[in-house]
């Protein structure tokens, strides 16, 4: 063995060099060459679970970590790393871990790994992007005191009195409890999200302080372990973790190639330099079916695209005006002609990806009827000019222009699409209450519950309710649903809430997203889930 070691190293080095040079083929002389699948992603912002709220980081972390729960085809939670998750009152949850899981450094996964990671995530001064997921847990507020910055300029924020969530308690090595502030029947599903992954003891520099470079080579409990380091703007490589107790992957590793541009991913896929592209840009959709044949695929995802009416704009305050605009939009024509069928018309206020979704809950208001729309619009005295503000960096210009053209034709009004450089610029204008007209919005769920749409998007003070919709009756129903005893009961109440939305029309639902992906001839069984992640465990070599 010893004598062979340098040789092996040399072979490995050569393989790395070949990979770096983009030579993915031509390895016939090495008999049992590792089967590595390359997947295109964008540069992740972070690889610390609790700081990862965007899809690129989540995609990589999904290979490195195993969640407590995952979801089946019907969006019901399925236990993965957890042996059981139980709660008698939906308030105190007892989580029992499966035995046998280890971190990639050999550490056994214990309850402490979860508690420490979650405490760190919720501790305000750490500034973790996913900290708000822990806000339902008791003790969150003590970890996040208000910043006294005000009229007198910036001041040092107070240090929280503790850095431990009072709602987390260890029972034994494999069991811990979570106490919520209020009962929530959907908590089991919430814990499937990226930010709830555990962290190994090796991650900590000291108590509650992460090692500076932990995210350069995260150690997880998942089916794959990181190979080398995160090579920023270039690639992240992971390889099969042999000691993984769960379902074993059928491939030896994944090479996440980092791209700045989706069209570049597609170009590499077309020329054979990349195996999987999870989102084919719409510019390539016309040619992709012919380019890729049966390797061009679609699957549903949870993206929900809509436009909102800022409540501070007087001209849209009449519900008839909002409904008329909605009815003047031919959603089907846009999904067919602009999106080439990669998205589907939306006629409800939540995504089909969640249980409780009903088709056409929006009713007549989301049905294309130009004649009726015009009559209604004129009767309600809608504004002569409609504006739609969007961010230009998301490829939204084409459908905004098309929507405007429809409104011009169908309502006889002037319509302008106003492009802002970034979404943040759009938000700034909304905050200043400028005349932005309709604002473009999109939502990708964190966990598969109706509540994950209803609360943030339409609840009073909801985190993404930028247009300021507020209806106490609606808020109340959402709250009641969350507190319901069973998920089924919850859905019933939430559907009542959705009906209120159909009445008030605070937003116009436009489209539901789909994963439009493609892969090379080297792989088969390529599937992309509702969170736009590749299902790694299903991937197989094609031959």
């Amino acid at each position: 063995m010893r004598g062979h070691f340098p040789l092996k190293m040399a072979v490995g080095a050569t393989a790395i060099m070949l990979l770096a040079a983009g030579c993915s083929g031509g390895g016939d002389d090495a008999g049992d060459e590792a089967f590595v699948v390359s997947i295109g992603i964008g540069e992740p912002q972070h690889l610390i679970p609790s700081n990862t709220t965007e899809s690129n980081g989540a995609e990589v972390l999904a290979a490195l970590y195993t969640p407590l729960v995952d979801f089946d085809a019907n969006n019901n939670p399925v236990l993965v790393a957890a042996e059981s998750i139980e709660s008698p009152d939906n308030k105190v949850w007892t989580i029992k871990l499966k035995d046998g899981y280890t971190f990639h450094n050999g550490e056994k996964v214990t309850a402490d790994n979860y508690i420490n990671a979650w405490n760190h995530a919720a501790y305000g001064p750490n500034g973790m992007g996913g900290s708000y997921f822990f806000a339902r847990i008791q003790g969150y507020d003590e970890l996040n005191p208000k910043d006294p910055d005000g009229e007198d300029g910036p001041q040092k924020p107070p240090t929280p009195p503790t850095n431990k969530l009072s709602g987390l308690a260890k029972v034994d090595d494999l069991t811990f409890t979570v106490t919520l502030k209020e009962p929530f029947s959907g908590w089991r599903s919430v814990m499937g999200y990226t930010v709830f992954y555990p962290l190994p003891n090796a991650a900590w520099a000291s108590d509650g302080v992460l090692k500076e470079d932990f995210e350069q080579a995260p150690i997880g409990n998942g089916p794959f372990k990181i190979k080398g380091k995160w090579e920023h703007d270039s690639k992240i490589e992971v390889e099969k973790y042999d000691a993984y107790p769960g379902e074993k992957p059928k491939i030896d590793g994944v090479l996440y190639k980092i791209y700045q541009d989706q069209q570049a991913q597609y170009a590499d896929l077309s020329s054979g330099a990349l195996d999987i592209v999870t989102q084919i840009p719409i510019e390539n959709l016309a040619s992709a079916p012919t380019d890729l044949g049966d390797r061009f695929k679609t699957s549903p995802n949870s993206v929900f695209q809509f436009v909102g009416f800022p409540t501070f704009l007087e001209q849209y305050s009449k519900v008839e005006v909002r409904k008329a605009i909605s009815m003047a939009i031919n959603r089907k024509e846009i999904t067919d002609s602009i999106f080439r069928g990669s998205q589907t018309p939306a006629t409800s206020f939540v995504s089909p990806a969640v249980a409780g979704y009903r088709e056409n809950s929006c009713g007549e208001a989301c049905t294309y009827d130009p004649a009726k729309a015009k009559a209604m619009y004129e009767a309600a005295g809608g504004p002569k000019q409609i504006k739609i503000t969007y961010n230009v960096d998301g490829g939204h210009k084409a459908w905004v222009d098309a929507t405007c053209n429809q409104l011009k034709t169908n309502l006889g009004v002037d319509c302008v699409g106003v492009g802002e450089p970034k979404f943040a610029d759009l938000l700034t204008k909304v905050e200043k209450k400028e005349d932005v007209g309709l604002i473009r919005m999109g939502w990708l769920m964190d966990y598969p519950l109706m509540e994950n749409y209803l609360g943030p998007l339409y609840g009073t003070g909801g985190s993404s309710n930028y247009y300021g919709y507020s209806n106490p009756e609606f808020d109340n129903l959402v709250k009641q649903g969350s507190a319901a005893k069973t998920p089924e009961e919850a859905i019933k109440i939430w559907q009542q809430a959705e009906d209120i939305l159909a009445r008030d029309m605070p937003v116009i639902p436009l489209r539901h997203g789909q994963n439009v992906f493609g892969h090379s001839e080297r792989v088969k069984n390529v599937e992309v889930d509702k969170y736009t992640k590749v299902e790694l465990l299903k991937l197989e070599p094609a031959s």
Partner: protein
Amino acid sequence: MSNVESVTQAEAPAADPAAAGAGGSEKPRSLAGDAWNDLKRNWIFWAASVLVVLVVMMAAFPGLFTSADPEYCSLSRQHAGPSGGAIFGYNFQGCDVYARTIYGARNSVLIGLFATIISGAIGLIIGMAAGYFGGWVDALLARGIDIVLGIPTLLAAIVLARRLSDSEDSGFWPVVITLGVLTWTTGARIMRSSVISAKSQDYVAAARMLGAGHARLMFRHILPNAAAPFVVVLTLLLGANIATEATLTFLGVGLRGNAISWGIDISTAAPYVREAAAPLVWPSVFLAATVLAFIMLGDAIRDAFDPRLR
């Protein structure tokens, strides 16, 4: 010792326009007159002029060229072929490509012209001053150019677009000013180096000894001899500016709303070139022809005024 030529006064007709016609019964010849005589008989000049006039007409009175509404679009006609008045067919949004190309001339040509005039003026003044005065003036201005070069175009464009416009206007002038302010460096450096070599010529020294002032030296004696590469850079800059407007607009810091321009249409059509080439090709052809017209016009005028070509 006597000198025939000083008497018959026919040497170098262009060197001194005022003296050229002395004692003659013919009409006096002047530099401008000669140039005009040359130009009159130069078909390239006429072809270029006709093109320029045509484009300017398009920009001023698009209604003369088409009766179609460039903003009337329908997805049902997406990438449809030519029909009726829409001789170039329809684009991705189902708009009349011909009508949009005609109406696009206004924004494109005016932005190109105004931006080029601004950057030409700045480049001329700064380049001339740096080259002519030399010394600390040159150092100061040349370092100023370095600084401007160092500022990323995108950053400056974003900041300028934000500061210069409120959301109500079309974003026309911010684009013009952004382009003008950011693109003068090439002209300035070219001007500077031309002036440096022109000012070392004997005739400049001669003119200086005759008591010509700075302004006269710069604009009467040095400029005509240093202008050639500068003119070349400017005519090309015109085309580049028209194209760059598209990039700015695509980044959200250019023209706003439903503005129509060649650059916007070219960039919008490019991803679908495999499906339908016409929406990409026609605005490009118009843009290229416009630039060509200005390049030819510039060349013809320069040649006509160049005494050495006589």
